[in-house]
């Protein structure tokens, strides 16, 4: 005998052995204001229903009311606030394509250095908080110590630690400080041993592997059908990185590898694979930074910034590779100085939609592990 119970507010009726558990908007591990409705049978999860929108700040509506395309950039920062440089970069590249602006070489090189430094900072936060979700508190502090060094470099360049408004359409807001190259080189030298330390402490820890290997397996074809991108897609074994496969800026001048998940300690596409892809991407970003910072040409970073931005009526879609995945901007210009429509395709919005498919049949602790391995930022999911 099974009693069906319909609770107003929950969209499916409950059988009597199922329980609805609410990982509510306030929870230590949902990485922001995300509500997960878990329908569980004991410890086993039968279904996960994510509810988002708690951080919706109407980015797209604001963008339509800005009087200038440049004014949208601070809003772009605030979407993925962990990796703000990459958001600005995507929007700037989209607008430059719309206006057919060619930025100076110096700007390109500095943008690449900033984007890759931001990638390392974002992955450090993802790895640190992931360790904390699994229960290892100490790697979190080590990751943040190194992240602070990157944020110090950013603060010296543009005055802000987290939300920069640095990459403008046609150039940059400030030139880099005189000792920028030296500081970045020092950071790279200091950071390489830390990755080794992190691997000893967390990556190959037996308990960590038991918690993450063979958990939340995402097959490659399912990932592509769901539109996954970034480390989530690469963790499933698909060697796809926009910096290599659909190049933008000057990434085609640098040598770097694309790490993919190989199922080293479990199955291809499990949480450990997504995690190790992020760790290895940090090493590759170091390679790009070292190549880029060694050859920054001289120039004026503000020479190509247009005085008036009034593109002709056109629409285009530009995508860039942020630490979380493929960030797309679809901009419709209507011949005035403000955009007609700016639609953002956030990588974490799409990656989060795969969570229910990955978590059915897992245990509650595994849902936390899977959610951490997707690496979401609610600012980007909700905009």
């Amino acid at each position, binding site marked *: 005998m099974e009693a069906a119970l319909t609770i107003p507010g929950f969209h499916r009726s409950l059988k009597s052995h199922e*329980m609805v*558990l*609410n990982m509510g908007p306030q*929870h*230590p*591990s949902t990485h922001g204001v995300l509500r997960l409705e878990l329908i569980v049978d004991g*410890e086993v999860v039968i279904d996960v229903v994510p509810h988002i929108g708690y951080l919706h700040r109407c980015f797209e509506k604001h963008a339509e009311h800005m009087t200038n395309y440049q004014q949208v950039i601070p809003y772009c920062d605030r979407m993925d606030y962990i990796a703000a440089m990459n958001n600005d970069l995507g929007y700037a590249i989209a607008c430059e394509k719309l206006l057919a602006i060619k930025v100076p070489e110096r700007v390109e090189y500095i943008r690449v250095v900033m984007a890759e430094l931001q990638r390392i900072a974002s992955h450090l936060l993802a790895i640190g908080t992931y*360790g*904390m*979700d*699994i*229960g*290892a*508190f*100490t790697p979190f*502090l*080590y990751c943040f*110590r190194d992240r602070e060094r990157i944020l110090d470099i950013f603060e010296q360049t543009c005055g802000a630690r987290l939300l920069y408004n640095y990459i403008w359409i046609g150039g940059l807001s400030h030139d880099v400080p005189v000792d920028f190259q030296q500081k970045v080189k020092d950071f790279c030298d200091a950071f390489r041993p830390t990755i080794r330390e992190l691997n000893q*402490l*967390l990556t190959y*820890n037996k*308990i*960590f592997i*038991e*918690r993450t290997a063979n958990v939340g397996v995402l097959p490659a074809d399912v990932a592509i059908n769901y539109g996954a991108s970034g480390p989530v897609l690469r963790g499933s074994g698909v060697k796809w990185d926009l910096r290599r496969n659909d190049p933008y800026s000057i990434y085609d001048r640098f040598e770097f590898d694309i790490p993919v998940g190989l199922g080293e300690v479990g199955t291809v596409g499990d949480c450990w694979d997504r995690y190790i892809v992020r760790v290895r991407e940090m090493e590759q970003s170091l390679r790009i930074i070292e190549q880029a910072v060694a050859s920054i040409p001289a120039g004026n970073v503000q020479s190509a910034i247009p005085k008036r931005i009034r593109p002709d009526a056109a629409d285009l879609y530009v995508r860039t590779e942020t630490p979380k995945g493929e960030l797309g901007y679809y901009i419709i210009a209507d011949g005035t100085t403000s955009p007609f429509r700016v639609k953002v395709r956030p990588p974490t919005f799409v990656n989060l939609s795969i969570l229910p498919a990955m978590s059915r049949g897992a*245990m*509650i*602790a*595994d849902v*936390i592990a899977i959610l951490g391995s997707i690496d979401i930022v609610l600012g980007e999911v909700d905009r």
Partner: protein
Amino acid sequence: MKETLIDLLGNEALVYSLMAVVPLLWILPFALFAVWWERKIAAHMQDRLGPMRTGGWHGWAQTIADILKLMQKEDIIPSSADARLFTLAPFVVFIGAYAAYAAIPFSAAYVGAEIHIGVFYIIAVSSFVVIGLLMAGWSSNNKWSLFGAMRSAAQVVSYEIPIALTLLAVVMIVGSFDLQEINKAQSGTILDWFVFQKFPFLFIAALIYFVASLAEVNRTPFDIPEAESELVAGYHTEYGGMKFALFFLSEYANMFAVSVIAATVFFGGWNSPFGDFMSGPLWGAFWLLVKGLAFVFVQIWLRWTLPRLRVDQLMYVGWKVLIPFSFAVIICVGFWVLLEG
């Protein structure tokens, strides 16, 4: 020492009540110290400093400030919680942790109660904690607390078995459950301690006991009942103020109790490692407390290093790894004792 006190005060009941309070005189300052110590150890392992300001030197008064703050908090009982069970639960947990101190000999001259079945008594009375945790989880009327309580009950009950079995291995050698006898049987130097006897079986037994005791006190890697990142705070989610302080106190009392039992049973108890040098009734208490603190340090160290196990993996480790090994240890030690004598 009991006889001296009875002669002094004349009233047996008074003496017994006084002796019941003596471990509390140790536990309360110890808890204050241990919380500060844990924060400092965690901080230094994490490349930061920890409390630095409260009280001046390295923030030594931090815990005192925290206790004062907790005492001033409003005592909230959720409206749909079972108020009696809710209020009673922290006390039951504390009783379970505290009652074990009665049987532990702090030195050759002092033991709270001369219980001839000391080991058996300790194992029995520390099961009280499970009842308290279940009461806390159920009475909170909160699904998350319930999860924490259920996990905790399963965990504690499962890991009592390896604890009992490994303690039995030592009991077989000594021939008595009395902890004072077990202590006396280890007199001599550090090499006479049971952890080095009947090598390697008692060494393995000590390791099994230590790991199982981590699960008994809900410390990482076995801290799923209070897994902060999953269950908010597990069974004590709804508790605040003094009730929460009592849970905290019980946790540290329990930590110290299992450390001191490990020290007594395997590591010589109140015996000095140097034989006669630095030994005597007061030195005995000193050595026991130092050994207890050493194990507490290892527990804190492990908490900040290791991730936590998932609940089914934890049950796997308990039932399919620790219990078979404990059985093997008992059989081997039993044969050894038989063939020797």
